């Protein structure tokens, strides 16, 4: 989404001069990331944890105010957990799973995301984006392999077969750097995308939304509430979300013709909020007007420049698919780039980043476009059908499934050449091309652990004990279920349709890439080679 106003800072960082600026020739780094937002920071931490030195550049020296990317999904929290920030986000965030939808003056229906018990992470938490960014910056500061250079503004880029040269502007003047790989994580208004003249194609919605973060003592439950044409907001939609620190996020649809300057005048915002809050006192924390697009770059990998997050794709905010999918991008990319840099995989492995994350972007854009079409009908007939769905929904369950106030982010599924197609039948909820489902386990010492926390950063083979000791290839971590980890709850067996001898190969990003009813070293080796991009059979 594109904001029309400047943000005040919440956390500030200092510019400091790098030794690279004194070098006569551009200093070379394996990976440079442009943009220290959630996606750039996540990518930097992920690569650093895999032993790759990273420099992150950001044109600002602060984390801006405003809730912005508010809702973090279960999969996103699982990824953040691998980066050392998941527990902080889940703990500080407000957990929620119920949504209520209203049409005019009545409740139309209530949905429950019904998170399955026995997962470490909840379905969703709400958290101001600046907290997430600050947790990630704190994590960066613990790692030697990654640094952020604040007030380093990218002004030029040129690539050749051997690397990328970039021009950077700082308070001390300009300098240049070389990178093997350059990651664009510089957001919806990506400088890199503009410098490289990449087309950003898709649909712009002719509507505007006013965000108000307000501080309010209210005993409303932590429920996502969405109103179509409520009596307090003249024929347009409104969304209410609870945040930590007694802050509430209100999104008012205000129409294409509204003037953002006028609409963010406190007295004007108060007039809207007073009607909604019916006399409950509140303080204004942050106001912004945004418009949005659903669009993406044609490709995400342009030789040695790789696009992630909003720099690669944009969606409407309804569905919480922006920050969540950006962080998935970084997680998909980091292990592949690390293998390529270590010479353990061909550079062509990065084509699978393009393929898998474009699949995800298409899914996200599709959902977010349909949600937006439902929210903002484009013709009188369109609106009549939308209203008919809402009217029918009060009575009939089939219509509730058509109500679309945002289809919330779930983990991306990849139909990928990296996966080894199943040759044996497997039931359960684990799916090839999906992230491995979590499960509560106990380790060999009897301590409670989560399955996902026990996975290594490399390939992991989960082998269900049958007395045999599989001789796994080098670089693969073996976890024997029933020995290293015990499945007391039986949830692992249920989710993975596990029987003695079964084995499950997980990629370094926790995606299930192959599974067999019995261990066979040749098959496992072939599956790993395939997942590293060696064969595309």
């Amino acid at each position, binding site marked *: 989404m594109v904001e029309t106003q400047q943000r005040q800072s919440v956390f500030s960082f200092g510019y400091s001069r790098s030794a690279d600026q004194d070098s006569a020739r551009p200093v070379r780094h394996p990976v440079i990331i442009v943009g220290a937002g959630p996606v750039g920071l996540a990518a930097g931490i992920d690569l650093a944890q895999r032993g790759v030195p990273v420099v992150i550049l950001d044109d600002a020296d602060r984390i801006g105010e405003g809730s912005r990317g508010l809702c973090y999904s279960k999969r996103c929290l699982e990824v953040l957990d691998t980066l050392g920030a998941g527990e902080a986000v889940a703990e500080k965030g407000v957990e929620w799973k119920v949504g209520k939808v209203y049409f005019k003056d009545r409740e139309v229906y209530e949905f429950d995301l019904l998170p399955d018990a026995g997962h470490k992470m909840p379905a969703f938490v709400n958290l101001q984006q600046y907290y997430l960014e600050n947790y990630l910056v704190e994590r960066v500061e613990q790692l030697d392999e990654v640094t952020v250079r604040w007030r380093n503004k990218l002004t030029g880029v040129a690539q050749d077969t051997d690397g990328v040269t970039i021009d950077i502007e700082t308070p001390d003047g300009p300098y240049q750097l070389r990178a093997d790989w350059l990651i664009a994580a510089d957001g919806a208004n990506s400088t890199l995308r503009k410098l490289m003249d990449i087309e950003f194609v898709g649909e712009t919605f002719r509507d505007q939304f006013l965000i108000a973060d307000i501080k309010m003592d209210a005993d409303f439950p932590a429920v996502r509430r969405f109103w179509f044409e409520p009596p307090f907001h003249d024929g347009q939609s409104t969304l209410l979300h609870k945040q930590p620190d007694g802050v509430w996020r209100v999104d008012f649809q205000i129409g294409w013709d509204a003037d953002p300057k006028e609409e963010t005048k406190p007295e004007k915002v108060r007039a809207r909020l007073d009607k909604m809050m019916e006399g409950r006192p509140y303080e204004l924390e942050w106001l912004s007007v945004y418009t949005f697009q659903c669009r993406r770059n044609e490709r995400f990998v342009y030789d040695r420049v790789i696009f992630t997050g909003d720099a690669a794709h944009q969606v409407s905010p309804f569905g919480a698919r922006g920050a969540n999918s950006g962080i998935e991008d970084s997680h998909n990319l980091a292990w592949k780039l690390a293998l390529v840099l270590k010479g353990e995989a061909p550079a062509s492995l990065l084509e699978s980043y393009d393929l898998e994350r474009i699949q995800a972007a298409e899914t996200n854009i599709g959902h977010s476009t349909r949600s937006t079409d439902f929210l903002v009908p484009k013709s009188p007939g369109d609106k009549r*059908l939308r209203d008919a*769905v809402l009217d029918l929904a009060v009575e009939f369950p089939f219509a509730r499934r058509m109500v679309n106030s945002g289809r919330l982010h779930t983990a991306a599924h990849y139909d990928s050449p990296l996966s080894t197609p199943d040759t044996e039948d497997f039931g359960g909820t684990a799916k090839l091309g999906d992230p491995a489902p979590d499960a509560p386990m106990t380790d060999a010492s009897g301590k409670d652990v989560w399955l996902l926390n026990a996975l290594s950063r490399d390939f992991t083979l989960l082998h269900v004990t049958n007395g045999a000791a599989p001789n796994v290839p080098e670089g693969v971590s073996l976890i024997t279920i029933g020995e290293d980890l015990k499945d007391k709850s039986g949830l692992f067996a249920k989710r993975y349709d596990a029987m003695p001898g079964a084995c499950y190969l997980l990629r370094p990003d926790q995606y299930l890439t192959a599974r067999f009813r019995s261990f066979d070293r040749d098959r496992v080796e072939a599956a790993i080679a395939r997942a590293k991009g060696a064969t595309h059979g």
Partner: protein
Amino acid sequence: MADLDTSSRFDNPDAAFQLVVDAHRALDAEASAEFNARLVLLLANHIGDMDVLKQAVEAAAKTAR
């Protein structure tokens, strides 16, 4: 793939038509359009078949004056 059945299926087509007309009789243009929207969605869900629905949408579009 199921096909849209466009043969005459009611024993008494006049009565079927009349039933729908009666439901509209007291409605103004807007209320009538809203009624039709609800009716279409109920019937579409009853059919529950994307192929049939798609053919019905095409047939309705094709027969516009």
